[in-house]
C-alpha cells in the first residue's frame, strides 16, 4: 500500500486536486443554477474587467519586487499621488508656469543626479538637464484646456518619476546591504509620508476625475449593452467602457513589460539585480541606476492605475486601499511573474465577483473567497502559479 502510494504519488495528488476542483464546481454550479444566464455572464465580464485593474496594480508591486526583492506597501499611496497630480493638470485650464517649472526642474535634477550629484556637471549633462526642463515645462503648459491630456500626461509623468526617484533615493538607497525586511518596512514609512503629502496638497475631499467622458454630454461613456444576446441570456449584460479602456491599457502595459524584462538589457540587468545585488554590482551592473529606474517605472505604473481607478469611481484617499485588495492577486500569480500578476488579478476579480453574486450579505466575495483561493493555491503551489521556484543550497 505504502509502496503504491509512493510510486503513484504524483498521480494521486493530481487526482485529489481534481476531486476538490470537481466538488467546488459542483457546489458553485448548484448555486449558480438558480441565476439567470445574463447574471452569470455579467458577473464574469465584471470580474475580468475589474481583474484587469487589479492586474495593473499588481504589476507595479511585482516590478519592484522583481528588481529589488522589496514588497512595496507604499504602492497604494503612489497610486493616490499619481492620480491627484493628474487631476491637478487635467482639470485646471491655466496651468501655473512657476509650478510646472518647479516640478520639471525637480524631476530633471533627480533624474540626472541618480548616480551622484557630480554627474550633473559632467560633459553635456547640464545641457540635457536644461533641455529636459524646458521640454517638460512646455509640455505641461502649452495651450489652453484643449491640451489637457498632454498637460496631464506630462505632469503625471514628471510627478511619478519624481516620486519614484525620491522614494528610492531618500528611503530605499540608504538601506542597500541592510536586511531586506527593513526595506519592506521603509515602504510603510514612505506610505505614511505620501499620505501626509496628499492630504496637504489636495485635502481629503473626494474629487471627480472626468477622463472617461463623452465630449457631447460631458458625462461618463454609456456602457455597451449586449442586446444581441438578450434572448440567449434571458436578460441584457452590459460592459462598462471605462473598464474596457483600463483593461486594454493593462494588457498593453503587461505586454510591454514582458518584452522589456526578457529582451532589453536594462530589463535583464534588473532581473540580475534582483537575484543578487552584490553579484550584479561585481559584474559591472550599476545597481543604483537600476533600482532608481525600477522605482520610477513602478511609480509611473501606480499613477496609471490611480488615474484609471480615479476615473472609474472618483479620486479619494480610499484608492490606497485598493493595493491591499490586490495582495492576494500578486501572490497568486507569483511575486516575480509579470504574466502572473495579470492572471492573478483576473482570477481574484472573478472570484470576488462570483462570491458577491452568490452571497453579498456576508461579504464572501471580498473578505473570504480571495483568501481561501490564495491559501489553496499556495498549499498546492508554494511559489504562486507562475512564481520562480527557488533552488536552495546550503
Amino acid at each position, binding site marked *: 500500500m505504502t509502496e503504491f502510494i509512493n510510486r503513484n504519488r504524483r498521480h494521486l495528488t493530481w487526482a485529489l486536486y481534481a476531486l476538490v476542483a470537481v466538488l467546488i464546481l459542483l457546489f458553485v454550479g448548484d448555486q449558480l443554477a438558480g441565476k*439567470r444566464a445574463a*447574471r452569470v455572464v*455579467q*458577473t464574469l465580464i*465584471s470580474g475580468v*474587467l*475589474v481583474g484587469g*485593474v487589479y492586474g495593473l496594480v499588481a504589476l507595479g508591486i511585482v516590478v519592484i519586487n522583481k528588481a529589488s526583492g522589496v514588497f512595496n506597501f507604499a504602492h497604494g499611496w503612489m497610486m493616490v499621488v499619481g492620480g491627484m497630480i493628474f*487631476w*491637478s*493638470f487635467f*482639470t*485646471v*485650464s*491655466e*496651468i*501655473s508656469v512657476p*509650478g510646472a517649472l518647479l516640478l520639471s526642474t525637480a524631476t530633471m535634477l533627480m533624474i540626472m543626479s541618480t548616480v551622484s550629484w557630480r554627474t550633473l556637471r559632467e560633459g553635456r549633462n547640464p545641457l540635457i538637464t536644461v533641455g529636459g526642463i524646458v521640454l517638460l515645462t512646455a509640455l505641461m503648459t502649452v495651450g489652453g484646456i484643449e491640451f489637457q491630456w498632454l498637460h496631464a500626461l506630462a505632469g503625471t509623468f514628471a510627478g511619478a518619476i519624481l516620486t519614484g526617484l525620491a522614494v528610492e533615493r531618500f528611503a530605499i538607497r540608504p538601506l542597500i546591504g541592510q536586511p531586506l525586511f527593513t526595506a519592506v518596512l521603509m515602504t510603510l514609512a514612505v506610505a505614511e509620508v505620501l*499620505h*501626509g503629502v496628499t*492630504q496637504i496638497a*489636495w*485635502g*481629503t*475631499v*473626494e*474629487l*471627480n*476625475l*472626468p477622463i472617461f*467622458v463623452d465630449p457631447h*454630454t*460631458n*458625462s*461618463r461613456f*454609456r*456602457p455597451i*449593452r449586449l442586446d444581441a444576446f438578450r434572448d440567449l441570456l434571458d436578460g*441584457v449584460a*452590459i460592459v*462598462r467602457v471605462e*473598464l474596457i479602456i483600463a483593461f486594454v491599457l493593462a494588457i498593453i502595459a503587461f505586454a510591454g513589460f514582458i518584452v522589456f524584462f526578457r529582451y532589453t538589457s536594462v530589463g535583464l540587468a534588473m532581473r540580475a539585480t534582483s537575484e543578487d545585488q552584490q553579484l550584479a554590482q561585481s559584474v559591472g551592473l550599476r545597481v543604483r541606476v537600476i533600482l532608481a529606474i525600477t522605482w520610477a517605472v513602478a511609480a509611473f505604473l501606480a499613477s496609471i492605475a490611480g488615474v484609471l*481607478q480615479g476615473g*472609474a*469611481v*472618483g479620486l*479619494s*484617499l*480610499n*484608492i490606497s*486601499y*485598493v493595493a491591499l*485588495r490586490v495582495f492576494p492577486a500578486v501572490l497568486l500569480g507569483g511575486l516575480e511573474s509579470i504574466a502572473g500578476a495579470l492572471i492573478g488579478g483576473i482570477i481574484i476579480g472573478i472570484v470576488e*465577483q462570483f462570491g*458577491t*453574486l452568490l452571497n*453579498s*450579505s456576508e*461579504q464572501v466575495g*471580498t473578505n473570504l473567497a480571495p483568501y481561501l483561493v490564495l491559501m489553496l493555491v499556495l498549499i498546492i503551489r508554494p511559489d504562486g502559479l507562475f512564481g520562480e521556484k527557488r533552488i536552495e543550497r546550503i
Partner: protein
Amino acid sequence: MKRLCIPLLILLLAGAALPSLAQDMLAYPSDLSACEVDMTGETLTVFHFGDLSGPYAFITQPIISAMNDAISYWNGQGGVCGAQLEQVYEDTGGNREAAQSAYDRFTSQYPDELDLLMLYSSDDGELLREQLAADEIVSYISAGSIESLYGEDGMTPGWLYASNPLYINQFGFFCQFVAASPETFPDPVIGFVTWPNAFGRAGTEPAAREYCANLGVDVLEEPQFFLPTDTDILTQVQNATDAGANIIYTNSLASGPALIAGTLVDLGLEEDVKLAGVNWVMDTTVGLLGQRVLKPNGLPSVDGMFGSMPFRWWSEVSHPAVQFVYQQFSINQRAIAEQNIAYLVSWGVIDSIIETYIRTVNRVGSLDAVTGADIRDTVESMDYAVLGGLFQARFEEGMRDGAMNRIAVMKYANADMSGPATGPADALLVDGPSGKMFVPLVLPLTDFMPVPQLRSQ
C-alpha cells in the same frame, strides 16, 4: 494650481438669495441665553477629537474649518460672556488605540476643564461610553450608533448625546414616508445596498424590517454590501433588483451613493428603482460626484435621490442660520468641497456647546465650578433651537438622539435659481474644476416630524 474656479461656484450656490456680502455682517441667528455671570478673562475650551487622516477623513475635515471659523468669530465678537473660546483637538486617524490615548491625555491634562467633549465617530463613542460615564463627561456626537448611545441592550443610560436621529430610526422614518406616498412608490420593496460596517448596516435589523412590513413596505432580508474601494458594483445592485427591490436604501457616503446611482443608470433602471439613504447622502460631495453619470433625461444620476435631512441645508437660503453660516463661509474663503453638512452642523454644535455652557454657568455661578454632572443636568432639560433652528436640541425622557427628521430630495438648480431644473436645458451650469457643473440642491419634502423609535425591541 488648483481650485481656481471654485469660488465662482460658491457664489452661485446660495448667492442669489443673499444680500451683497460686502455690505453688513448678519446678526448671529441664535437666541442664546443671556449672560448672568461675566466670564471675562476666562477661557472656554472646546474639546473634540476624531478621524482627520483615516478612512472618514473626507467628511470630517470641514469640521476643523468650521471650528476654526466659529472660534475666531466668537473671539472677534469679544467671546462668550467675555470668555475667550479655545479648542483642543486630536487626530485619531480612525484608530481605537489613538482614540483611547487622546481621551487619556485630555482627561489627565484637563481634569477640571473637560466636562464636554465632541466626538465624530460612533466607534469612538462605543469605546468611550463607559469611561465617559465613569469620568462624568458629557459628549456631543452628530450621529451615534445604538450601542454608543444606549448600550448593548439599547436601554442603558449614558452620557453621549447625538443631534441626528439614530440611523435605524431614520430608516423607519423613510418607510413612513414611502407608505404615505403610494403614487411615488407603488408596491414598495426596499433593498439595502450599503457599506458593511456598523454604520452601513444600521437599519437592516429585524425590528426595522418588521416595522416597515406593518406599514406595507417590504424590506429584503439580505443586505448587499460593497466597499468604498469597489470599482464595480453591478453585481450587488443587480442582486437587490433581482430580488424585487424597487427602492434601494444606502448608508454610505460620498462616492457610495454616486456609485449606486451611476450603476442604476448603466442598467437602465433609473426610472424603475428609486434611491434613498441616511442624512449623509444628502451632501454636496454626493451631488458633485453624482454628475459623472447623466440620466437619459440629461440630469445627473443622483437627481431625485431621497434622504433624511434632520437639519437645515445650504439651499434653504431664507433661513437665518443658513444665511449666517454661509456668510461666514464666504468671509473665510472656504472651498466648495467644504460646503457640506459637516461644516454647517459644526457651527451648530459650537452654538449648542456655548448655549450649554451659558445655561450651566448661569445656574452654577462660575465657569470653574461647572462639572460634567451640571452640564448633564442642563442638557437633559434643554429644548433649544440651535442657531435659531438649524436643528433642535431636545433630549428628554431618556432620549439621547435627535427626535425630529424630515425627508428631502436631491435636485439640481435651474438657471434662474428659482427651483429645481427639469432637464439640462434649464439647468444652471457653472464652470467647475472638471468642466461644466450642475449645482446641487437639497429640497425638503416634509416638515420636521418625530421619528419612530425602533431600538431596543
